[in-house]
């Protein structure tokens, strides 16, 4: 089957909003207000061990589940004999895939592949007749303790007939490769093409051409808290699932479908999250499975993902084969990159779709008229992906930035200068590419600030001096464009969200929102925004997230959208309430409603400061006297709003261009490394970065997320990989093998900011949270290669572990 190289149909059928919201009258601009940022909410609970995570939920009578997983990368299940496990005294329930078929429907996809023109198939919560990856759930046991449940797994006998497996994406694309899903005929999930102009022609005619390959190994998110679920059914048939999930409402919808329960009788409570980064997007089989087990056991059941199981979930295994034509000055004339993503086995979890932004993000911050990018997701017998911060956008950053450095090397021009010559200039915004409508940007300014912060010229001088001593210092630049806030109609990956604001008679304010926090602080920022609207103390504003019984329907946490969507919705709701309250104040105080300020906990007449009510007095009066007093004719102090649409272009224009992402933050990075040419060990010595995510609500939280993203990028560039053995099993099962950065591995990251507001969003914000991963990966990749330059070799295999670097040195850079 050939997939069609057109934009996904749903992107074409969705509405076409492109409004620039007017700032509401009287609203203070963010930068005009207090420099004071509230401390992180619930910090005291976290600091004293009193915050509750999912594993801390323990309803009375709690039982524990363990899951039997496939030891084979590909096999037919001929039969499962669970009789011995069932006979164990402590065992309450044993469930096999065959048992579960009648109890649960196939699982809805987090992101249904057919929405974007890809192939698809059905999955169940336990494998029924075939397994396609080591670790695929096959059966589950519930017992009085986790130890007993795990012990009983050994008593389940599965009769497997092993089948040939394929682990490598290139091999999986061969005609003779084992096919994972026979109905597809081959292993290609789809094809995402992104092109403008005539790349092939321009490259063929270019005076200079570089062709090369870049490989990125399989990586993993590694949140400190793994996934977990606790399910409990009430006697009346109501289900509660406590879940460490990034998408409580879509999870509830999908549970209702899978389990055949009316949606209103399912409550999902997203517990405080110990890090998400994409690992906790919904769609996992364990979600309905734990609910089923609880129903069968007639008791609450808990399942907590082990670290080994957590490490099964993959991401980022890509190969780039690129070709670039450029002129004498290093200006790009034509660019092509064929990207292959080894997505492991397809699964209902969302990660495979990282192959979409991996291509869409091209040509990044650069003005390249002629380019042809293809991104091809390929299924293999590795475990499936889920999301990983960066979501494929880091791939474009690595390839583009490597290309810039290769051009610089070829032409003998400074790498920073090559970038300046290719950037989209500030006056060209908003700027169209094949699949992006870029909002605003001052790219060269950000790069120059990063160079200044890093002391770039001094770094080059140090490098020269070190080279004279035979030491291999490398300086690397990475520039990252990060499309954020994506909206994919037909899925639950939506670009808007919902918030309710409720003013209580006491003057206390509740915000109930559909966005959730993975621990980054958006609850604090949302409270801050709403408190500003009402002129009250931030402590008077409570924020509830993640409880589907309490919050309006929302889509949760992904693609750095929480403040632009849930935050903006809360601001709009608060403004509507403020108008109602001003009307009431006007009636009570006999003054013009438009002439009231909300400040310092009071509603104050602008013309006569003596004419005022406290915010609490006004709220209580509206509740006590509404509909009974003249002018108090709207006593409802609760408003639910969604954020305004901003910069989505779902319907392709006459040139076929569309834009599913509304917001385009960016960042510039400079790294200094030393490469030990004898051992291949890379030491990161210095790191500087500039970020620009438009208007910033909470500078501390934006910086904190950037530090974390940069550290994840550094880890991905230098150390993090899940290799697979020839037996088809992953070899990294603990943090002894999967090497995320530790404190002594990193220098202090120097970070400064630039603010180029988005003209399209309510607050001028752009997404914040994901930015930094790709820039860091690119900067490190370039720094190591810069260090190796005197040796005349390139290292184009990420992570740049000592064996990879040594291999590059020894083999002369052959990939």
């Amino acid at each position, binding site marked *: 089957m050939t997939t069609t190289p057109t934009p996904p149909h749903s992107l074409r059928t969705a509405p076409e909003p492109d409004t620039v919201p007017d700032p509401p009258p009287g609203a203070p601009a963010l930068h005009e207000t207090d420099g004071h940022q509230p401390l992180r909410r619930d*910090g005291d609970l*976290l600091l004293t061990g009193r915050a509750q995570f999912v594993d801390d939920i323990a309803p009375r009578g709690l039982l524990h589940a363990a899951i039997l997983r496939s030891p084979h990368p590909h096999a037919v299940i001929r039969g499962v004999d669970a009789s011995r496990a069932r006979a164990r005294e402590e065992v309450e329930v044993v469930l096999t895939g065959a048992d579960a078929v009648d109890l649960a429907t196939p699982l809805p996809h987090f992101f249904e592949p057919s929405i974007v023109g890809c192939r698809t198939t059905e999955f169940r919560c336990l494998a029924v007749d075939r397994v396609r990856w080591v670790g695929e759930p096959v059966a589950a046991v519930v017992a009085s303790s986790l130890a007993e449940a795990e012990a009983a797994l050994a008593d389940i006998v599965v009769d497997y007939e092993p089948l040939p497996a394929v682990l490598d994406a290139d091999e999986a694309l061969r005609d003779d490769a084992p096919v994972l899903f026979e109905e597809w005929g081959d292993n290609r999930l789809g094809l995402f093409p992104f092109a403008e102009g005539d790349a092939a022609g321009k490259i063929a005619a270019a005076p200079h051409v570089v062709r090369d390959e870049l490989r990125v190994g399989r990586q993993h998110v590694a*949140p400190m808290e793994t996934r977990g679920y606790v399910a409990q059914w009430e006697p009346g048939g109501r289900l509660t699932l406590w879940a460490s999930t990034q998408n409580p409402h879509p999870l509830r919808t999908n549970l209702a479908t899978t389990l055949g329960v009316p949606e209103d009788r399912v409550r999902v409570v997203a517990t405080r999250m110990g890090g998400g980064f994409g690992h906790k997007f919904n769609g996992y089989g364990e979600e309905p499975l734990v609910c089923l087990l609880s129903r069968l056991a007639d008791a609450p059941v808990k399942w907590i993902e082990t670290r080994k199981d957590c490490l099964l979930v993959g991401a980022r295994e890509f190969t780039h084969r690129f070709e670039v034509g450029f002129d004498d000055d290093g200006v790009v004339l034509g660019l092509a990159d064929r990207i292959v993503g080894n997505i492991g086995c397809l699964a209902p979890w969302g990660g495979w779709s990282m192959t979409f932004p991996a291509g869409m993000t091209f040509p990044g911050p650069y003005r390249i008229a002629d380019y042809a990018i293809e991104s091809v997701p390929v299924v293999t017998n590795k475990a499936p992906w889920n999301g990983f911060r960066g979501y494929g956008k880091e791939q474009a950053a690595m390839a583009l930035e490597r290309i810039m450095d290769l051009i610089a090397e070829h032409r003998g021009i400074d790498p920073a200068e090559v970038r300046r010559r290719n950037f989209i200039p500030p006056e060209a915004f908003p700027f169209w590419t094949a699949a992006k409508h870029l909002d605003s940007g001052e790219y060269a300014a950000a790069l120059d600030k990063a160079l200044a912060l890093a002391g770039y010229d001094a770094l080059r001088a140090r490098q020269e001096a070190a080279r004279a001593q035979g030491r291999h210092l490398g300086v690397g630049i990475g520039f990252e464009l990060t499309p954020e806030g994506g909206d994919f109609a037909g899925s639950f990956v939506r670009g808007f969200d919902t918030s309710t604001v409720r003013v209580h008679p006491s003057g206390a304010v509740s915000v109930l929102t559909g966005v959730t926090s993975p621990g980054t602080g958006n609850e604090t920022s949302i409270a801050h925004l709403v408190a500003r609207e009402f002129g009250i103390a931030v402590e008077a504003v409570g924020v509830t997230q993640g409880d589907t019984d309490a919050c309006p329907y929302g889509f949760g946490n992904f693609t750095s959208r929480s403040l632009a969507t849930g935050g903006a919705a809360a601001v709009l709701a608060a403004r509507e309430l403020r108008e109602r309250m001003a009307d009431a104040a006007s009636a009570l105080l006999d003054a013009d409603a438009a002439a009231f300020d909300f400040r310092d906990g009071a509603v104050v007449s602008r013309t006569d400061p003596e004419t005022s009510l406290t915010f609490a007095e006004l709220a209580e009066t509206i509740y006590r006297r509404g509909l009974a007093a003249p002018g108090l004719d709207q006593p409802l102090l609760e408003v639910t709003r969604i954020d305004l649409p901003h910069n989505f272009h779902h319907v392709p224009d006459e040139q076929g261009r569309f834009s599913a992402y509304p917001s385009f933050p960016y960042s510039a990075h400079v790294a200094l490394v030393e490469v030990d040419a004898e051992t291949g060990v890379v030491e990161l010595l210095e790191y500087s970065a500039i970020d620009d995510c438009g208007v910033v609500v909470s500078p501390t939280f934006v910086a904190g997320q950037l*530090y974390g993203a940069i550290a994840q990028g550094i880890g991905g560039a230098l150390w993090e990989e899940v290799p697979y053995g020839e037996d088809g099993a992953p070899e990294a099962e603990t943090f002894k093998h999967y090497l995320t950065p530790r404190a002594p591995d990193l220098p202090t990251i120097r*970070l400064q900011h630039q603010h180029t507001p988005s003209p399209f969003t309510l607050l001028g914000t752009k997404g914040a949270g994901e930015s930094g991963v790709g820039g860091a990966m690119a900067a490190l990749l370039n720094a190591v290669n810069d260090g190796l330059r005197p040796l005349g070799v390139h290292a184009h295999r990420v992570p740049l572990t000592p064996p990879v670097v040594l291999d590059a040195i020894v083999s002369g850079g052959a990939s």
Partner: protein
Amino acid sequence: MTAVEPRADSDAVPDRDLALTVNGRRRRVRVEDRQLLVDVLRDNLGMTGTHIGCAGGDCGACTVRMDGQITKSCLVLAASAEGADITTIEGYSPRGTLDHVQQAFWDLDAFQCGFCLPGHLFAVRDLLDRDPDPGEDDIREALRGNLCRCTGYVNLVAAAGEAARREREDQER
């Protein structure tokens, strides 16, 4: 060590009574011999502030202070902790108060999701008890056994230095 009394039922999991002091209180619990200290603290004693990130000694989220030593409680069999004096994150500072390390962590935004936090607090506290004026490298080295995936350690390191500064300032008063 308490002797294990074999029971008639050979399938029965061996267990024992264990006496501990946890956060200053004497506690007596019945534990299975195979139970890890972290599980006993969390499940038997309700000290859920001690977190399990890896159950293999790699991440440090389960750190407690045991007889004066910071210890990864996922690497300790509960049965070996007879008579031990244990401080968990719940008892790290007197209830209702934050010490300089905790307050500096909050003020400088040294944590995000907070899951790894107990380990980092204990590691910094342990460092400052030994060295009131540590340099950046000393702090980073003291945190080597504790993983964080949110912060890149930048604010963590800064907060440790700030806590040290505040404590020295207190001393000089």
